[in-house]
Structures are given as structure tokens and as C-alpha cells.
């Protein structure tokens, strides 16, 4: 059973979203996603200041089995990325919601993330996918 913190929001492409002050959000990949990928060997995050478009790929997480794109849930600008992942990509496996965060984004005004699931909805989504 994967861990799904109730205070976060989720996407159907297995990213989590944490609301931060000042119209910023933090994103990463869920426990389900990190388990499916296996041990991460490499993470590529966008540089500070990069403009992101909702639904477009903005980062890559790579394991031995797969390389998966991470999709931005909003239009915005990258204000921080997790530099520790360059030498320790396994942080994403060990603490996907804490030390394994990927990017912090300053959301464009009037552009709240659409189609996010809450914890219950994401759990149901995972159950449906498993069928």
C-alpha cells in the first residue's frame, strides 16, 4: 500500500503538489511512482528561472528500468530545484514527499492548477489503474 499524505494534491501522472506561501508550489513524484520506477539513478531538473507550461514535460527521473517525464501542473517559473538529487537521486525513493522534492514553482497569477486530485481521489485512481 503506497503512502498518500492527505495534505497534498496529486496528478494522474503521479506527481504530488504542495501549496507554499506567496503563490508558490512544490512538486515531486509519489510513493507509488518511485516504487514503480525502482532505484533512481539520475534526476534532471530544470534550471532556475526556466518558464514552465502546464502539461509540458519539465523534468526527467531515470531508473535502470525507465526514464519518465515529469509534467508541470501549472504555468509558472522555476524558483528552486533540489540540487541534492544530482549526487543522491535515491532521496526520491527514500523520502518522495520530503527530501526527494524536485522543483518549486512560482505560479503565474490567476493560474491555479487544474484537475488536481485529493488524497482520496488519488487512492481511488491508483486502485482503478491496478485493474
Amino acid at each position, binding site marked *: 500500500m503506497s503512502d498518500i499524505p492527505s495534505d497534498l494534491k496529486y496528478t494522474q501522472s503521479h506527481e504530488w503538489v504542495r501549496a507554499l506561501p506567496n503563490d508558490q508550489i512544490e512538486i515531486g513524484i509519489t510513493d507509488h511512482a518511485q516504487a514503480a520506477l525502482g532505484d533512481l539513478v539520475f534526476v534532471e531538473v530544470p534550471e532556475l528561472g526556466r518558464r514552465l507550461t502546464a502539461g509540458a514535460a519539465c523534468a526527467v527521473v531515470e531508473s*535502470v528500468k*525507465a*526514464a519518465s*517525464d515529469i509534467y508541470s501542473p501549472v504555468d509558472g517559473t522555476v524558483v528552486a530545484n533540489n540540487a541534492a538529487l544530482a549526487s543522491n537521486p535515491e532521496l526520491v525513493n527514500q523520502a518522495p514527499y520530503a527530501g526527494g522534492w524536485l522543483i518549486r514553482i512560482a505560479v503565474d497569477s490567476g493560474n491555479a492548477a487544474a484537475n488536481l486530485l485529493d488524497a482520496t481521489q488519488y487512492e481511488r485512481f491508483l486502485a482503478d489503474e491496478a485493474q
Partner: protein
Amino acid sequence: MPFIPHTPDDVAEMLAVIGAQRIEDLFDEIPSALKSAVLSRVPQALSEMEVGRLMSERAAQDGRPLNFIGAGAYEHHIPAPVWAIATRGEFYSAYTPYQAEASQGTLQLIYEYQSMMCALTAMEVSNASLYDGASALAEACLTAVRANRASTSRRILVARSANPTYLKVAQAIAGNQNIRFESVDFDRQRGDALAASLRAYDGEDVTALVIQQPNFFGVLEEVDELTDWARTNKVLLIAVVNPTSLAVLKPPGLWGSLCDGKQGADIVCGEGQPLGVPLSSGGPYFGFMTTRMQYVRQMPGRIVGRTLDMQGRPGFTLTLQAREQHIRRAKANSNICTNQGLTVTAATIYMTLLGAEGLARVAEASLARCEELVTALTAIPGVRATFSGHRFHEAVLTLDRPVAAVLAALAARGILGGLDLEERFPELGHALLVCATETKTTADIAQYAQALGELLAVPLVARGAA
């Protein structure tokens, strides 16, 4: 039935287990309308003896003319152990090393190959090979587009003194991805790329510059100047190089000056055929690619890495496969699936047998023979050296008459005199690209000079209308 071991008893037993009456029943899911008639244009089977006879006749038809053609495929002596070992069943009939524990031979060999290519080119990392030199250049261009984040133009400058077929292949393969290739002209006197014509691109958004060393004419490029220009203008430098020449020429990893902590070419590629692979009508060869470690994830093709097994013993495995087609699918760096395993095996054995000293001797001997050839041929009235630049083992000669007829007459005497450049480079007039490697003897060169002398002794006027 050739290669099929089944006896009628086998077939009967197997059908019984399956629960079918005849083998044809196993095809009952195929709509009968689709089941084709007998193949009418495939001949009846030949025994091995009969095929051997046929192939011997075909081979004899073509014979073994004396070869002075280079132009991207070079005749070198191949030590006997190279193919004796490469055609061992354990190498010849092994598959791609996806099950690493059962493929340590192939994997370790590729690791050794990667190491040798890095040493030759003075670069940090190599892949396990690509199909050939031309397609390797196409892949290098695609890699440069991925790697050069600062550039969005997808403009790639290619020296006209580089192999024109390579440019055609790069266009065919990479042209569908919005890459624009533009030409940098060459100096008519010296035969090398015109560094001055790069000035026109100063400060413009250019993704990469392609330089071949030695170039298609056999002339040596001023690689330091060209590399420095690229570095200053944030243009990635793609070097197309001849591996034999790297035993004696400055390797691309050391081209140019140290600038911003970086030196040398950014991506190196080329044709590996000179390293122990026979001419074989153009293939199979292999393309090599080496680059900086920072671009390793942008590089296409397979890569072998060394690691440990669960008991701490060293072993080898394919790595970074997540970039490849079988995992990334539509997002892969390339669709490439094969590497040229067998020819890479031959090249690795070749490089091991020769070592740096042996390879340098091959390079120097080839250089010397080419000089001898040029001296002998330019002594003939009606033949002159076209370019003044320094050469490796090829040279362009200008004849006093159309090259095609001369070559045809030489071929009739069992001599392949070189490559006619008139169509590829009309501005050079009656130009002929000749090559001599360590395989040519003084007697061979004399034979060529003698024949050419006789042919050109016939005055132009008397030859009548062209």
C-alpha cells in the same frame, strides 16, 4: 531439408501433443485468401557444394584488381588472428548482451573497445558503436542539437572539404527534425576549410560545426583555429576523424586552446573500418562516437559499464539503457537498436595486436606510400598535385583530360586508379582522388605509374572528340 532436424517420427509425436493432424493446421488462423502460392522467383535449393561453386565463380568474375581508392574505405593489412577469433561461434553467433551474466565476453570486449576509442580520440566517454561513419555523423548532429542548450537555431555548419556522402546521409537521417545544414567552403589552393568564411557567422546562433580530419581530399585541416572559433562562438565542434591517423595526429580532445575550462572537440565520430575491418564492398563497418562525460546521457547507442556482482566481483553490463528505444520509445535519443558487435570485436582485437606503436607504423607507412605515389604520378606529364596543403594518405591530382575514361582504361588493366571527383566537385576540373596505404609496394606504385604514363602519352588531340 537444410538446417531442419525433424524426422517424420518427430513430427508425428509433436503433432500428437499439440492435438493437430497436420502442420498446415497450425496455420488455420490465417485467412485462406492470404496464403500465397509457391515462390516462383526463388530458385530451387543448392547444396553447400553447389553454392560454393557459384560463389567462387562470382568472386573470380570480379578478381582482385590493384586498389588505389580510398574515399572513406581504406585497405590495410588485417592480422590473421583478428577474424580467426571474431568468427568463433561464441562471438559470431552470440546475441546482444542483454543477459549480462551470460555475455561477459562480449561486454568486457566492448568495455575495452570503449576505452581504446577514448584513448585514440582523447575524449572522456565512448558508446559501443553505431552503424558506420556516415550515420555516426548524423547521430552526432542530433546529439549536438540535444546537448547545445544555449542554441535553438538547429543550424549546423559543415565544411565542404568533408566527405560529401556523409553530408547527404546526415541530411537524409537528421533532415526530418528541422536541422539546417550550411556549407563552409574550402581554399582552392590549399584544399582545407576556409577559416575566413566562418567570420560571416560570428555572433550568430549556430548549433554545431563539422570538421573532418584528414578531410575528404586527404588534406590536413587547421583544427586548432577552427576549434577556437567554435568555442568562442558557443558552437559545438563535431570532429569526423580517421582512427589510423590518430596514432600520429593530434587527437580531437586536444584541438584548440583551453578556454572556459574546456578544450578540444565536443563530439567525435568517424568510420572505424580501417581498424581491422575488410573493404567488403562497403559494409559491414562501424561508426564510433566519443564525447565529453557531461554529454553521456545525450549520446545514442549502447554503452557498457563496469560494476560489481552480488558477491563483490567485478563484471560488465549494458548501462544507461533508459535512454534507449526499448525503454524511452518515442522519447528515445535515437531509434538505434543494433551496435556493430562483430566489426567492433575485430577492431578491438586489431588495436590490441598493433598497440600504439604498431598503429603509428601503419599510419607512417601509409603516409610514406602516398608520398611515393604522388611523386611517381606527378612525374608524368599531364598530372599535377591539386592542393598545396599537408596530406595524410590520400591526395587529389589534376589530370589533363577527363578522369572517367582514364579510370576505365586503368580498370581494364586491373588497376583501380582512384575516385573520379568531377561530379562531386566540378570546380576542381579533372580531379582524381588517389590513396596508398602500407599495403602498396614500390612495385605496385611503379605498375600504376607505368600504366598511367602509357595512357597519358596518347596526346589529347589525337583522342578526338570527347
